[in-house]
């Protein structure tokens, strides 16, 4: 797509979209939203970038290796937190009893591991969306 209007508007819109996505992820435990929604918004913005600037530039922004790391990294963080729960409190994914810092009710830094989990889910969803899209558009003929 070689339209200058689309390109410029995309350049302007994408940072806002991504900032909004990060906001939604980080505020997941105190306002509506959370990992799924924010991750999907970030993923959509990356898809938009790939659509407008072409596959090659999109690849530079978010390479295959990076998406692979992000994909298993999301689950890894999840499992790691769960295992900390097993060690500290004797049950998988224990929050308060495992001694995660709780913070003050209503702040961003509150809720024990919930923000961390939200970030993990966000990374996972965003990377899944963009890599699914990439796989779909440049599939190889057998």
């Amino acid at each position, binding site marked *: 797509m070689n339209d200058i209007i689309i390109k410029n508007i995309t350049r302007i819109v994408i940072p806002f979209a991504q900032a909004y996505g990060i906001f939604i992820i980080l505020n997941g435990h105190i306002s509506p939203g959370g990992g799924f929604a924010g991750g999907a918004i970030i993923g959509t913005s990356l898809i938009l970038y790939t659509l407008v600037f072409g596959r090659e530039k999109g690849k530079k922004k978010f390479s295959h290796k990076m998406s*692979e790391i992000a994909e*298993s990294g999301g*689950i*890894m963080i999840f*499992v790691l937190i*769960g*295992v900390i*729960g*097993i060690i500290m*409190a*004797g*049950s*998988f*994914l*224990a*929050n308060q*009893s495992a001694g995660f810092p709780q913070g003050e009710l209503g702040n961003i830094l509150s809720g024990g591991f919930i923000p961390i989990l939200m970030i993990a889910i966000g990374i996972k969803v965003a990377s899944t969306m963009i890599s699914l899209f990439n796989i779909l558009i440049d599939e190889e003929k*057998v």
Partner: protein
Amino acid sequence: MIIEQLPIINLLLFLFMALIIPLLKRKPFKITLILGFIVLILVFISSGYLLWYVNNVEIISYTFGGHETRFGIEFLVNPFSALFTTVISGLALIIYVYSSGDKTEGIEKKEFGRYYVLLFILLLSMFGILYTNDLFNTYVFIEILSITTCAIISIKKKKDTYTSAFRYVMMNEIGSLSYLFGVALIYMATGFTNITLVSESIQTAFSAYPFNIIIALGFMIIGLGIKAAIFPFHIWLPDAHSSAPSTSSAILSAIVIKVYLLVMVKVLYSVFGLDILVEMNIPIILLILSATAMILGSVFAIAQKDVKRMLGYSSVAQVGYILLGISLLSLAGLEAAFFHIISHGLMKTALFLSVGEIIFYKKTRKVNDFDGMGFIMPVAMGVFSIAALGMIGLPLTSGFISKLNLGIAVLENNYVIFLVVLILSSLLNVIYYLPIIILAFLRNEKYHYRMTTIEHTPKTMITPLIFLAILIVALGLFPNVIMPVIESAAKTLIP
């Protein structure tokens, strides 16, 4: 303390294995295989230990996050789930050893990594389905299971696998969404998703809102019935199972359908309870369905020229047997069904794996080409024959014991007509299994001279086959070894 953690540790081991395979991409594949073998052995040992523990010490109830059972998700390890996780991990171990011969039929070498990732996630989801005591959690695991099962079919990059995988995924998704609808209706009427809590309050909910429970029951039976290939919904099964790679067919036919049937057992016996089922006349409907499946599955199997399609239709008939045991709603019937789940798992695995070896070396799937195969590939064909005889229900094999148990259970309930159906279906089994054995071993003497040339297949493919044959015969000779465990598993569902 550590015993309580064992179920989740099992799941985490599978997950760890699935996540670690992509990281080992640059290392030789053997390391991955050995690591996977160690994981499977560990899981087998731990689930076996859990089986001993829950039968002799106490039932384990484990809640995530340390919340009360009401508010969180509960893992319940009772004799029922412990028994079947052990059986599944054992069968998976055998299939894994067979498939690790680096000669898996139909899968390209590049796809091995992904295949094993999918295999371990498949096992994770099945363990999760059996352990969990929460209806919605079951749905999540069912979705993981359905996507992985479709993926291990379509991983064989052939033309017809894509179409059959597409049909399978559509049917699967209709099934899952129907199940989810059932869960929604139950949640609406009772306000719980935990199975124990639902079963406590479902009687009052039934008297207050009967329509709710009836529709929920209908949706759940149809949804799980599609996935378990119960008779009118079986149309996807022969395509899917015959176009899949042989190891995948073995997993699908021997384990995955059984898991859906076990979920159905859980739903029927634990969630709804016998009183509602009897009041709704559900057993009669299920009995008729199972009888039709037993007859028609075998009749369709006779007409097939392709061996794997024939085995697929045979699975339809065998699901009928298991459903017959389940829908008798008696202790004996349930025990017979459970025994048949185990013995059919062993026999179907043996059949698919031996057929897989034959297809791999001889590149033929037609029944007629099995001419004299017994002299060319004695081990594979021998195991095939033992398993086929077990399917027919010959004494000395596990199939005989399961049919005997089923017959006794049917007679206990005074359903003589179903005994006739059982015998008729066995006779139909004879019609399609026996000719293959006769063709392979007794005809065409021109192959006799090849008796000396024994097939040079890798040991990893031969050993599991022989082991399976020994297990089938051993289970036929000494069924009482595992009977106590099955009995206690059945008693957890029928108090």
